[in-house]
């Protein structure tokens, strides 16, 4: 089947929803499609809790927000993009307000702000502890008011069609029927989110498998800075890494090792449990590596002890964390400590775009976590991801609309369509083989966790790269058991695993090549930042033999790199 739209947005997280609204608003005659492998509001963005950063009042300045961001990024962020970015957020916050977002308020009725780690003033706007959830729903509801937007829910994108360096459309499986649908379009916006599921232990949703990133990569767009993966110090251990928010430590929770020691006094004697995320994450992992973690069916952990706070305080101040521990892990923090260890949280890298969300391919835009503008550089500040989705989602939507007004309708040839049918249904679904995709995923997760985790080191990474390449080979031989067409999640999982293998290779080799420690990329064999050789972005290009690497200078406008100290 074939459908036609002027603009196709892939992904319905904050970035995708915002882009679709922007495009539809720009010109009501443009027909916009928004495609997602889940129902639109079931995207990953609903998980975000903490908040979103913006300069909203006179007491704060754009330059301080920009500086905090650049410093947080360990100077790898492109400063022109950051300066543009911070100026655009406030309007987005006010727009969301007038679209119905239930922002938390101060007593006078104004939008309230609080402070998150790494910021020099309280500039985080929030909607209780469900910020991402409320923004997503608000955008979704706003989107419903545009008659020129068509929703394609539960369509799994399998290919991005690019010819002559120009985008032509996408191919997607309509899950309900199992049919391939080809979307011909003038412009395509990728907003498919991060790739946290490369790792088994992650705070990301099951759907965060980097699909769009891999599709762009295969279509010839370079991937930027993929080696930078952010870890959050406290993921709930029995629940595969569900986020346990910093609020626990903020309220006075202790981190304890197996010997009952508050080990943070060794790593950050002053700030203790409240030291920056990367320091706490490394401290926890050191304890585990040195054998002072607890063991469990779910792997090693340290204890986040709240019991000394007392039942009343926990129930009053941390009710949601208590509820989460009980529901997701069967542990009541009033009675026993919460088992935690660092969890994969965010991908700083992604599809290479310029500071206006444009990729090197004509008509192809990328925004949100799947893109790398880059404003996060080597390390993202809490609360900047949602803001990025809004700002660059909007920019992508507007530019795509402008572009589409003057562009020719993309055409997907019959030949391509047949090839894609064959690739999915004959070569993947129809084929027999002796590998289980899930076994491959399991081994991939283990490899990533063994060699590309918080501490990295040359020899290990080399082994990891080999293993990933072996897995890629084995993947060619997978067999999908479910041969039916309708709602074949066996098939889509297998395709996702294919995407992940490609990305894993880029992360792995990129990390191996970067011989320094910067932001979230920490190497035991190169523990120092090296601005002389490595103040540059990694770019990975697809070739059938594996990624080819290139580098690109960082854009520096105002702030020369200095030592990053908090």
């Amino acid at each position, binding site marked *: 089947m074939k459908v036609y739209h002027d603009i196709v947005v892939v992904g319905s997280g904050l970035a995708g929803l915002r882009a679709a609204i922007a495009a539809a*608003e720009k010109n009501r005659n443009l027909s916009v499609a928004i495609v997602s492998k*889940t*129902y639109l*509001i*079931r*995207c*990953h963005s*609903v*998980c975000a809790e903490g908040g979103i950063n913006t300069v909203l009042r006179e007491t704060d300045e754009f330059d301080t927000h920009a500086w905090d961001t650049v410093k947080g990024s360990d100077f790898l962020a492109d400063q022109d993009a950051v300066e543009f970015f911070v100026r655009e957020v406030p*309007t987005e916050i*006010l*727009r969301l*307000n*007038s679209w*119905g977002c*239930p922002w*938390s*308020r*101060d*007593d*006078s*009725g*104004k939008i309230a702000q609080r402070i998150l780690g790494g910021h020099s003033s309280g500039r985080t706007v929030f909607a*209780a502890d*469900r910020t991402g*959830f*409320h923004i997503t*729903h608000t955008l979704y*509801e706003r989107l*419903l*008011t545009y008659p020129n937007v068509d929703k394609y*829910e539960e369509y799994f994108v399998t290919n991005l069609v690019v010819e002559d360096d120009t985008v032509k459309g996408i191919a997607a499986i309509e899950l*309900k029927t199992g049919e391939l649908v080809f979307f011909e379009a003038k412009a395509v916006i990728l907003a498919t989110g991060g790739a946290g599921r490369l790792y088994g232990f992650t705070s990301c*949703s*099951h*759907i965060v498998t980097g699909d769009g990133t891999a599709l762009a990569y295969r279509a010839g767009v370079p991937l930027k800075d993929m080696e930078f993966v952010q870890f959050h110090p406290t993921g709930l*251990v*029995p*629940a595969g890494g*569900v*986020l346990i928010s910093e609020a626990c430590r903020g309220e006075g929770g202790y981190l304890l090792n197996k010997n009952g020691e508050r080990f943070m006094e060794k790593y950050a004697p002053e700030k203790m449990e409240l030291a920056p995320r990367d320091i706490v994450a490394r401290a926890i992992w050191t304890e585990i590596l040195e054998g002072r973690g607890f063991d469990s*069916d779910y792997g090693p952990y340290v204890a986040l002890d709240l019991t000394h706070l007392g039942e009343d305080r926990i129930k009053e101040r941390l009710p949601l964390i208590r509820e*989460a521990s009980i*529901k*997701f*892990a*069967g542990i009541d923090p009033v009675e026993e400590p919460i088992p935690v260890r660092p969890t994969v949280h965010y991908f700083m890298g992604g599809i290479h775009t310029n500071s206006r969300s444009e990729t090197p391919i004509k008509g192809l835009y990328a925004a949100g976590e799947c893109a790398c503008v880059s404003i996060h550089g080597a390390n993202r500040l809490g609360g900047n991801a949602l803001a990025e989705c809004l700002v660059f989602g909007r920019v992508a939507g507007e530019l795509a609309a402008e572009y589409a007004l003057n562009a020719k309708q993309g055409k997907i040839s019959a030949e391509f369509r047949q090839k894609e049918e064959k690739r999915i249904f004959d070569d993947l679904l129809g084929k027999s083989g002796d590998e*289980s*995709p*899930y076994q491959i995923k*399991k081994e991939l997760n283990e490899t990533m966790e063994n060699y590309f985790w918080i501490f990295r080191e040359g020899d290990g990474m080399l082994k990891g790269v080999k293993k990933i390449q072996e897995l890629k080979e084995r993947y060619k031989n997978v067999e999908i*058991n*479910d041969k*039916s067409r*309708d*709602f*074949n*999640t*066996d098939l889509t*999982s297998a395709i996702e695993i294919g995407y992940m293998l490609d990305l894993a290779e880029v992360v792995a080799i990129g990390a191996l090549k970067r011989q320094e420690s910067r932001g979230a990329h920490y190497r035991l064999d190169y523990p120092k930042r090296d601005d002389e050789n490595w103040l540059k972005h990694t770019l990975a290009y697809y070739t059938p033999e594996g990624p080819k690497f290139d580098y690109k200078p960082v854009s520096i406008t105002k702030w020369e790199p200095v030592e990053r100290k908090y």
Partner: protein
Amino acid sequence: MVEFKIRRYDGEKSYWQSFEVPAKRGMTVLEALYYIKENYDSSLAFRASCRMGICGSCAMKINDKPRLACETQVLTLGNTVKVEPLDNFKVIKDLITEFDGFFEKLKAVKPHLIRKDDNYAEPKELLQTPEELNEYYVFTLCIKCGACYSVCPAAATLDEYLGPAAMTAAYRFCADSRDEGQKERYEIASSPNGVWRCHLAMECSEVCPKNVEPAKAVQLLRRKTAFSMLKSLLGW
């Protein structure tokens, strides 16, 4: 070992299938389903995403009650766990049900702020006190999981019934101090398939995993709708 009895459907016939899952402390029903999919039968189909109770994908009937699979601990359920798709929705495959209609109904109630001064380009800061926020905040917590709809007796017999979740959304906006669209929504709510079809069975509030109290929202919406209709009838 815990026995999982799963109600399956392959598009033509529906049947029960049992699996033995090594359950350990901390395991959720969703993890058990993944365990089954990845180790025993990869054709098992179910929806899931966030696995932290916020995306609304994984509502299903677990031991006869609709719950979020990702929020339900296996060991609290005994030695056999029965898993079925939600009632009142058409089954597509295994635990996956048709939600298009559910979202259509949501859309039908105009779930967005309606304001005459809507200004995309230059929005101004609309104020709202914490008290005004509390008037409707609890109703914003709905994750659209459909659990309420699956137990509502009115929805069981009337396909077109708007249902508790959509009407909760309608009321959520009517009660928002920034909104000016009450009239429009009351009219939609008072359609024959709207508020009048609710008879306060209240089961919706009993099963809602997010404690949204949809029954309360529907009741408030009905009262406001009825009085607004009567007022306009009497020309007040």
